[in-house]
């Protein structure tokens, strides 16, 4: 039977299967139990695995993450949800001061096999704080891994890897494409390695790096420039930290040009790091300035403005052309 799933379903399936395999896995957070999450990502988990392993908590992100630290030390593999990535900030101290550092602090006596999941990014015409793309905040913290899938297939495989990883992983789910499309997703477990980007399509003239929901928009842009005889190599970063530097460095050595597209603000966004790495590793191959197309350096606007904020396929296409024609 073909298993054609959207991203919500693929993530749910990964959770279902992994919880079956490993009974030390627990899932908790605000509204993840009875209701199955505000996006229904954890639906039916409580029915299947009971209230001990899947449960709702009081409304307190710091404690959700902080207790997960304790649980992980005490032999469980907690998977906790931040209802939106924009509500992870109350847990920021636990994340940076403990989640990221317990292994190093204890010189390996304690490690934290935990996953923090959150719906992430803009584009669903939501209230303030519900559209955040702040992966750069977390990707800069030593000791954390940050993963952002762009397809149902990847979401399942990456989440399984995240769950099995012995280090803490932030799993940020691009909610804009939660239900945007379905894909064949194999039943049963498979791992997609953390720290490995994916070349979505090879090309000769320019390297475009993106992740999450923006990948689809880049693909649309690529369609638009096809008739202009521009051949794009598209890389889906998939893991933001630790970053797969070789993927785009090797690509740039071939194309000589690179564009990073992300939804987060420009300043100190992940694009900055990618460009710096390209400078370090492929400087002599550069034929045009490494370029960023990103959200603005402003707060993400309320719905009546968000269409301006997220780079559109048209803007991406134009920027690709600009870089290639440089």
């Amino acid at each position, binding site marked *: 039977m073909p298993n054609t799933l959207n991203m919500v379903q693929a993530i749910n399936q990964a959770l279902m299967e992994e919880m079956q395999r490993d009974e030390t896995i627990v899932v908790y957070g605000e509204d993840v139990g009875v209701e199955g999450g505000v996006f229904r990502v954890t639906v039916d988990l409580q029915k299947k695995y009971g209230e001990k392993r899947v449960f709702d908590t009081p409304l307190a992100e710091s404690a959700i993450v902080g207790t997960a630290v304790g649980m992980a030390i005490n032999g469980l593999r907690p998977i906790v949800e931040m209802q939106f990535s924009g509500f992870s900030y109350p847990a920021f101290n636990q994340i940076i001061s403990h989640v990221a550092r317990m292994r190093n602090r204890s010189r390996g006596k304690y490690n934290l096999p935990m996953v923090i999941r959150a719906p992430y990014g803009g584009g669903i015409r939501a209230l303030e704080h519900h559209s955040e793309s702040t992966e750069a905040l977390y990707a800069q913290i030593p000791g954390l891994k940050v993963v952002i899938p762009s397809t149902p297939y990847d979401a399942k495989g990456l989440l399984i890897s995240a769950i099995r990883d012995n280090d803490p992983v932030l799993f940020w789910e691009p909610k804009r494409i939660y239900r945007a499309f379905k894909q064949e997703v194999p039943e049963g477990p498979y791992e997609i390695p953390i720290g490995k980007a994916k070349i979505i399509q090879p090309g000769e003239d320019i390297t475009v790096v993106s992740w999450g929901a923006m990948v689809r928009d880049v693909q649309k842009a690529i369609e638009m420039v096809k008739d202009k005889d521009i051949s794009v190599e598209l890389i889906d970063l998939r893991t933001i930290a630790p970053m797969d530097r070789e993927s785009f460095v090797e690509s740039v050595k071939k194309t*000589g040009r690179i564009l990073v597209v992300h939804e987060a603000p420009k300043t100190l966004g992940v694009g900055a790091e990618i460009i710096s790495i390209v400078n370090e590793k492929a*400087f*002599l*191959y*550069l*034929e045009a*300035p490494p370029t960023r197309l990103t959200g603005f350096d402003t707060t993400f606007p309320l719905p009546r403005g968000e269409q301006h904020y997220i780079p559109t396929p048209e803007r991406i296409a134009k920027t690709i052309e600009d870089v290639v024609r440089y």
Partner: protein
Amino acid sequence: KEGNSASENVAGKALATPVARKLAKDLGVDINKVVGSGPNGRVMKEDIIKASKQPSEAE
């Protein structure tokens, strides 16, 4: 690693700094055809200036 004979540009594209590339463009030199004298066959500014002074060789 200091060799400057096995220039990579023979196979394809030149290794060069943005400054050198700009110079080549300004002087109308196809940088991919210049033999680099720098580390790993990097095309140096002098290489470009030299090339610009020579009549273009047969392809």
